[in-house]
C-alpha cells in the first residue's frame, strides 16, 4: 500500500473539495480520487450543554490513512467532539461528512454502520464476560449466539495475524491487564469493520511499555489504510505518532498543522493560549539536615510477595527527591507505607525527631500527619477526595480533627469555608466555589484541591504521588511551581512519578526503583537515557559486577 506517500501531498484542500463531493451526493466509488476524499470532515459543529459552549464552530478535516491527533487541555471539548462523531451526543448544528457523504449520526449504531469505531477512555467492556462475548456484543449476527461466536473466533484469529493483536478469546476481561483490555476494545472496533478508529486518551491507564505497544499497533493500522483519530493531552504522544495534529482550546479548534512542521513548545502554546515553560524554572537546591530517613524498609503485600526490598534513603530539608520507575516496581507501596496506610515487614523511619520501628508500629495515616508528614496520594479519586462531597468538605479531609475547624462536638463550618475560600484563591482553583461537589471540578483543579489541603498545613515532609496525572498543562505548570516554592521554603519533598519528564524537571536527586529496590541514584541533571536504562533494571555506571559477564 502506498498510502503514506499519498498522505504527504495535499493539505488544507478539504473544504472546497468536500463541498463538491457533497453536491454530487454520490459515493465517488472506486478510482484514483479515493485517497483525496477526507475520511471525515466536520463543518461548523456546535454543541452546548446548558450555558457551557463545549464545541464552537468546529471545522476539521481528517485525511484517510493518517493518524490525526487532537490535543487540548482537559475540558477543551475534545471528548465532546468525538462523542458527536460517534453518535453519543448530537450536535446542535453543523455538518458531518464521512467519506465524502454528508451524514446524520443519530446513535452509536449508525456510527458503527459508517465504519467509525471508538475506544473510550473508560473501557466499555463487560468485566465478567469473555473476550469473545465482548467482541460480539451488539454484532451477534442472529438471534442465536453460537453462529456469531464461531464467526468471531475465526475473525479474531485473522485480525490477530493481520495486526498482531494477540489476546486469548476465552479469557475473562476482569483477568486481563488494562493493556490487553484496551486491545479488546480495538478488536471490537475492527470486528465491526471500522475504517476510522477514535481513541480517547488511550494511554492514560497504560504503562510506558504498554503505550509503546499501542503505538506500534496504531502504526500497523495506519499502514493497512485505516484512519486513526487520537485524542490526548500528552504532547509527547502527539509528536511521537501522529501525522497531523489539531489543537483545541476552550471549545474551539485553534489550529491544524502537520506534526513534522511543529514542536512541543509551539503546540503547548497553542493549547494554553500563552507560552508555557515545559522545564521548571528553579535555582539549585540548598539542602540542609535530613528531615526524613528511611532505613532497610521491607514491605510484603497481601499475596506474600516482597514489593519493597531493603530500601534506605533520606530526604533533606529544602530538596525534592524524585523516585523514578516504571509503575508497579514498589513505588506505590513505598508511599503508602510511609504515609501510614500500609504496614511494613521491617525497617525504621526517622522523622520529626523520632525513630519509628515500621515493622512493629501501628501508626496510621492520621498519626503520620501529626508527625508533620503530609501525603498527596497517587490516585486522587480513590484516596485523595470524596467526589460526592463539596470542595470545602474535601479541603479538610484528614485534618477534620484540627481544633481550628471545630467548635466542641460540631464542625466550625464558617472557619472551614473561610479556609477553603482562601485556598481556592491562592491555588487559583476554578470554578471558585467551595459549595460545589469536587466531582464537578476538572482533573487539574481537583488535584489543586488536594495539594492545597496538604501543603497549606505546612508539613515538614510532603509525600507526593503522581501530582500531575490526568492534569492539563496550565495546572501542571502551577503545581510544579508550587512544589518548588515549598522546597525553597525549606521543606523536604518525596516525589513519586512515572512521568520521567516530571521527575527530571523537578528533582534535585533522583532515585530509581526497580523490582522493589532502589537500583541507582542520580543528580539533578540526569540523562533521560541513563534513567531509562536504570528503570529497566540495567545499571551502566556502576556496572562493577555486571561488566564481567
Amino acid at each position, binding site marked *: 500500500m502506498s498510502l503514506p506517500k499519498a498522505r504527504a501531498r495535499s493539505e488544507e484542500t478539504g473544504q472546497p473539495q468536500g463541498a463538491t463531493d457533497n453536491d454530487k451526493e454520490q459515493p465517488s466509488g472506486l478510482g484514483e480520487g479515493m485517497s483525496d476524499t477526507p475520511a471525515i470532515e466536520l463543518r461548523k459543529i456546535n454543541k452546548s450543554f446548558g450555558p457551557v459552549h463545549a464545541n464552537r464552530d468546529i471545522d476539521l478535516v481528517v485525511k484517510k490513512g493518517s493518524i490525526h491527533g487532537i490535543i487540548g487541555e482537559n475540558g477543551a471539548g475534545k471528548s465532546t467532539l468525538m462523542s458527536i462523531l460517534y453518535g453519543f451526543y448530537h450536535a446542535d448544528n453543523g455538518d458531518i461528512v464521512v467519506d465524502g457523504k454528508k451524514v446524520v449520526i443519530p446513535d452509536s449504531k449508525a456510527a458503527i454502520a459508517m465504519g467509525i469505531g471508538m475506544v473510550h477512555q473508560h473501557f*466499555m467492556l*463487560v468485566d465478567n*464476560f469473555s473476550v469473545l462475548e465482548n467482541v460480539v456484543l451488539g454484532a451477534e449476527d442472529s438471534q442465536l*449466539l453460537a453462529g456469531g461466536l464461531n464467526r468471531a473466533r475465526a475473525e479474531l484469529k485473522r485480525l490477530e495475524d493481520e495486526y498482531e493483536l494477540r489476546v486469548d478469546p476465552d479469557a475473562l476481561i476482569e483477568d486481563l491487564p488494562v493493556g490487553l483490555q484496551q486491545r479488546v476494545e480495538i478488536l471490537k472496533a475492527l470486528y465491526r469493520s471500522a475504517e476510522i478508529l477514535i481513541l480517547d486518551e488511550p494511554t492514560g491507564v497504560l504503562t510506558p511499555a504498554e503505550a509503546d505497544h499501542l503505538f506500534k499497533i496504531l502504526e500497523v493500522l495506519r499502514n493497512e489504510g485505516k484512519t486513526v483519530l487520537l485524542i490526548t493531552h500528552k504532547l509527547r504522544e502527539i509528536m511521537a505518532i501522529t501525522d497531523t495534529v489539531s489543537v483545541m482550546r476552550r471549545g474551539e479548534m485553534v489550529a491544524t498543522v502537520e506534526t513534522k512542521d511543529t514542536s512541543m513548545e509551539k503546540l503547548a502554546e497553542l493549547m494554553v493560549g500563552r507560552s508555557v515553560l515545559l522545564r521548571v524554572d528553579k535555582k539549585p537546591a540548598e539542602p540542609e539536615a535530613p528531615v526524613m530517613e528511611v532505613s532497610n524498609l521491607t514491605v510484603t503485600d497481601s499475596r506474600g510477595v516482597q514489593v519493597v526490598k531493603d530500601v534506605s534513603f533520606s530526604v533533606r530539608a529544602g530538596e525534592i527527591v524524585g523516585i523514578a520507575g516504571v509503575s508497579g516496581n514498589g513505588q506505590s507501596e513505598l508511599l503508602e507505607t510511609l504515609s501510614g496506610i500500609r504496614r511494613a515487614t521491617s525497617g525504621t523511619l526517622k522523622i520529626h525527631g523520632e525513630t519509628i520501628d515500621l515493622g512493629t508500629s501501628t501508626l496510621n495515616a492520621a498519626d503520620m500527619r501529626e508527625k508533620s508528614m503530609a501525603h498527596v496520594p497517587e490516585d486522587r479519586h480513590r484516596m485523595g477526595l470524596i467526589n460526592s462531597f463539596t470542595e470545602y468538605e474535601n479541603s479538610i479531609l484528614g485534618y477534620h480533627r484540627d481544633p481550628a475547624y471545630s467548635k466542641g462536638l460540631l464542625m466550625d463550618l464558617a472557619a472551614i469555608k473561610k479556609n477553603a475560600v482562601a485556598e481556592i484563591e491562592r491555588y487559583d482553583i476554578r470554578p471558585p466555589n467551595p459549595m460545589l461537589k469536587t466531582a464537578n471540578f476538572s482533573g487539574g483543579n481537583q488535584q489543586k484541591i488536594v495539594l492545597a489541603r496538604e501543603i497549606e498545613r505546612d508539613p515538614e515532609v510532603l509525600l507526593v504521588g503522581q501530582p500531575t496525572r490526568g492534569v492539563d498543562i496550565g495546572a501542571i505548570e502551577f503545581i510544579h511551581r508550587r512544589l518548588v516554592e515549598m522546597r525553597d521554603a525549606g521543606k523536604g519533598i518525596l516525589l513519586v512519578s512515572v512521568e520521567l519528564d516530571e521527575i527530571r524537571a523537578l528533582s534535585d536527586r533522583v532515585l530509581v526503583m526497580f523490582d522493589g529496590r532502589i537500583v541507582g541514584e542520580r543528580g539533578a541533571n540526569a540523562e533521560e537515557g541513563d534513567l531509562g536504562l536504570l528503570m529497566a533494571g540495567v545499571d551502566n555506571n556502576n556496572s562493577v559486577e555486571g561488566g564481567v559477564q
Partner: protein
Amino acid sequence: MFEDFILILDSTVRLSTPLLLACLAGLYSERSGVVDIGLEGKMLGAAFGAGAVAYITANAWLGLMAGIAVSVSLGLLHGFASISNRGNQIVSGVAINFLAAGLTALLGQTWFRQGGRTPALPEGGRFTDIAWPFAEQIRDVPVIGPIYTELLSSHNILVYAAFLAVPLTWWVLFRTRFGLRLRAVGENPAAVDTAGISVTWLRYRAVIACGILCGFAGAYLSIAQGAGFGVNMTAGKGFIALAALIFAKWRPASAMLTCLLFGFLDAVAIRMQGQEVPGIGEIPVQFFQALPYILTVILLAGFIGKAIPPKAAGIPYLKERS
C-alpha cells in the same frame, strides 16, 4: 415412612412452584440491572386478576392471561419509574407492593363483597391436576409407583411450566443474543449503549419478561393451587423468591434448587404442625417459616460464598456528561 417422604416431596414441588416462577421473574429483571423488590406486589396483583377473571369467565386460561396482564402492567409502571425516569428502583418496587396490596383488597371488596376475597371458582375456572398415563395402574408398584404417581404425575400444568422455565431461562440467558445483551446491560450498560443497542428498550423487555413470569406465579396461587383469591394471599412469597434469587447467585439452575429447598422447609413445617419431636417437643411453625430468611442471611454474611449481584443492578443508566 417412604410414603410420608414422598408426600413431603410432593408438597415440596407444589409449594416451590410459585417461588420458582417469581424467582425466575426476578432473575430476568435483576440480570438486566433493574432491582425488583416488587415481585410480591406483582404476584398479588396477578393472583387477584386471575382469580377475578377466572371466576367471571369460568375459564382458567383467560384467568391466567388476566393475571399476566395485571403483572406486566405493574412491571411497566416499575419500568416507567425506574428506567424511563431513572427513579430509585427500591422505592418504586415498594410502592408497587403497597399499591397491589391495597388495590386488590379494595377492588375485591367492591366487586365481590366477600371481604376482599374472590368467590370460589366455578368448574373450568381452575387448572386441575393432570394425571399421567398409567398413573393409577402402577400406583402400587413399590418405590417407582409412588414416585411416578405422586411426585411426577398429577400436578397442574403451571407446575410443569415452572420447571420447564428453568432450562428455558438458562438457554435464553446463555445461548441467545437477547440473553447476552441482557446479562451485559446488567453489568455495564454503557458497553451496551456504545455497541449501538438501546439500554432502555432492553431493560423494558426484561421487565416485561419478569411481569409474565410473575403473572404465572400469581395465577398459580389463586387459580391452580387455590380456588380463588384471598386477601394478601402471597404472604411474603415474593420476598422469599427474592432471597432465593440472591441465594442462587442469579443463576437459573441454582434458583430451582434453592426454591425446592425453601419449598421443602415449608412442606416440613406444615407436616410438623402439632407434632412432637422426641426430645425437643413441638417445634413452632414460625421457626420453619423463618428458615429461608435465616439461610439467606447466613449466605449474605459470607459463610457459603459471596453472592455478587449484577454490577449495574439498582443503578439507573444515565449517559455521562463528560
